[in-house]
């Protein structure tokens, strides 16, 4: 018997559908997030919502390999899009392609990473901030909690963004911090690895994870290892929001990825139609905001809907 009251995840539809008619611009978004990455999936949701709100046509593509990302930018330029949104984890690698887009008269907005080089390449503005800022916020907060020794769980070896986050945490923590590598695609084994670390090094009293799914298994691992370590994480999802509410997770740092995507498209649309640039070309910050026990409840519902 199929009873739909068993459907525990069914969501309320959020937001009204996009404006009819609209501006009709063609906007390409090219990021360095790997497919299926939780953070970038929220950015994509923001981009698409803005597209439907503004009545623009969006094409979103991404590749973690800088050379391939550059080729995707070239493809967008070939298609003569009206605007381009780029995240620049490796600005040097994208320089030629971004400049080519600017030279072709396509307005470019950079998001997430690459703030320092944005202007130099000829982008209108930058939205969001480097992982560094968020990382420093986490480090500071953990320092306030009196953490003596921490581990930073990297779930994709060699990923620039993740490494930046850990490095930034280390820079403000003022206590020893060790990186630990796990495999995001095998969370069960990730849990065992985190547990192994906590079992073998009982001095660890702080755990930093860099994404929602890993935070959940880290919480479980802390419990199973009988460790008293405190857990902080980057990025949100429904489980993380709940974990924060339950006190299993100390706090989560939120860069509001949805906003990075949404605002980039909106601003390009406004620029194309009205030559407006928010902040007059200065970097627009989207965070970091700390999600703690106090505000987690409100956000949980939104995280489940994929907008926070």
């Amino acid at each position, binding site marked *: 018997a199929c009873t739909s*009251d068993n459907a525990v995840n069914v969501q309320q539809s959020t937001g009204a559908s996009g404006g009819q008619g609209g501006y009709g611009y063609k906007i390409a978004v090219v990021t360095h997030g790997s497919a*299926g990455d939780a953070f970038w999936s929220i950015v994509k949701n923001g981009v698409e919502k803005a597209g439907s709100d503004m009545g623009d046509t969006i094409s979103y593509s991404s590749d973690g390999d800088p050379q391939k990302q550059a080729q995707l930018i070239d493809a967008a330029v070939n298609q003569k899009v009206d605007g381009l949104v780029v995240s620049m984890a490796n600005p040097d690698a994208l320089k030629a392609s971004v400049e080519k887009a600017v030279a072709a008269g396509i307005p470019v907005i950079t998001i997430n990473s690459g703030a320092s080089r944005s202007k130099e390449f000829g982008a209108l503005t930058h939205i969001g901030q480097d992982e560094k800022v968020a990382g420093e916020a986490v480090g500071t907060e953990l320092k306030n909690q009196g953490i003596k020794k921490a581990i930073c769980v990297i779930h994709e070896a060699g990923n620039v963004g993740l490494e930046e986050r850990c490095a930034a945490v280390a820079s403000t923590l003022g206590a020893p911090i060790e990186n630990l590598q796990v495999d995001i*695609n095998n969370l069960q084994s990730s849990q065992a690895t985190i547990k192994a670390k906590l079992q073998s090094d009982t001095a660890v009293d702080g755990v930093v994870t860099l994404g929602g799914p890993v935070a959940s298994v880290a919480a479980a691992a802390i419990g199973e290892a009988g460790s008293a370590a405190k857990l902080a994480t980057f990025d949100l999802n429904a489980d993380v929001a709940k974990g924060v509410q339950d006190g299993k997770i100390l706090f989560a740092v939120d860069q509001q990825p949805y906003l990075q995507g949404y605002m980039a498209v909106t601003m390009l649309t406004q620029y194309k139609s009205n030559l407006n640039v928010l902040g007059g070309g200065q970097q627009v910050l989207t965070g970091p905001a700390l999600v703690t026990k106090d505000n987690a409840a409100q956000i949980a519902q939104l995280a489940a809907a994929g907008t926070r």
Partner: protein
Amino acid sequence: MSVGIAADERVARVGLLKRVLLKPELGALLGAVLVFVFFAALSDVFRSPGGVANWLDPASTLGIMAVAVALLMIGGHFDLSAGVQTGTAAITSGLLTTYYGVNTWAALAISLALVLAIGFVNGYLVVRTGLPSFIITLGTFLMLQGLNLGITKLVTNTVQINNFDKIIGYDVLHAVFASEITIAGADFQIAILWWVVATIAGSWLLLRTRFGNWIFATGGDANAGRNVGVPVARTTITLFMITSLAAWFVGTTQIVRLTSIQAQAGFGQELIYIVAAVIGGCLLTGGFGSAVGASIGALIFGMTSQGIVYAGWDADWFKFFLGAMLLLAVLANQYIRRFAELSRR
């Protein structure tokens, strides 16, 4: 001129030890002992009951897959989609129950039927087209990866499915797939038990049944097999479906254990399954190998990947140590076999 079987003058004596060493599994077993001793010497937590329970855990799900993949490899094929299928199974069960309110058991049955169908399609295409399974399953691997993400995104608007613990009957599922058994003060996952069961079942199938004989023939020389009446096509398709069955089991274990599943789950694990099977002595070209060997391969991999953490080595070098340990394990295994073969053949 003919001599009794028991005393052929052309056969020299062979010691029991050397006979034992010749079994491929036992070479791998010695490798496993070596790895264990190595890490046990470096870290006493590693050899404590809690430590053992911890590194047996990742080895268990890997082992279940490795046994199925080993059978497939002995039958002469690869399944690159095996890892992603674990995700497909879990995502299907998760979406059906938590989003569409389908009855838990019906949902599990549907997801099982789905992955078995995928296995069937893999096998059917391989048999029908004669293309290498590597390329066929790479195609399904990519397609499933896209489907897992695309559908999860479409339905949930996020890249993961939560709240699996809220479904009806979760208690039963938890008991079957994710309960823990306390031995010597440490909690051992029930998956370890299922791993042992899978290994025994795989060995039995391979060595004691007609189907096992067909597996060896299909991988060893499909043409010769066909000529003496082995149903090569049916054997191949069944092997792919067995792999899918294992993927369903492991995927279900995962979603029950974690109560949530990600769209990318299982991606990239297919190579690790193959590695475990190969460490355990399976030939990549088919026709040779064992289920027990594959299980020991999984054990070596599990011990090594967790052992590095227990030993406290720098995480940046993790992959380096992992690679070095793997290479050492297979080389030691090989060396032992060579040594033993010097006195038999």
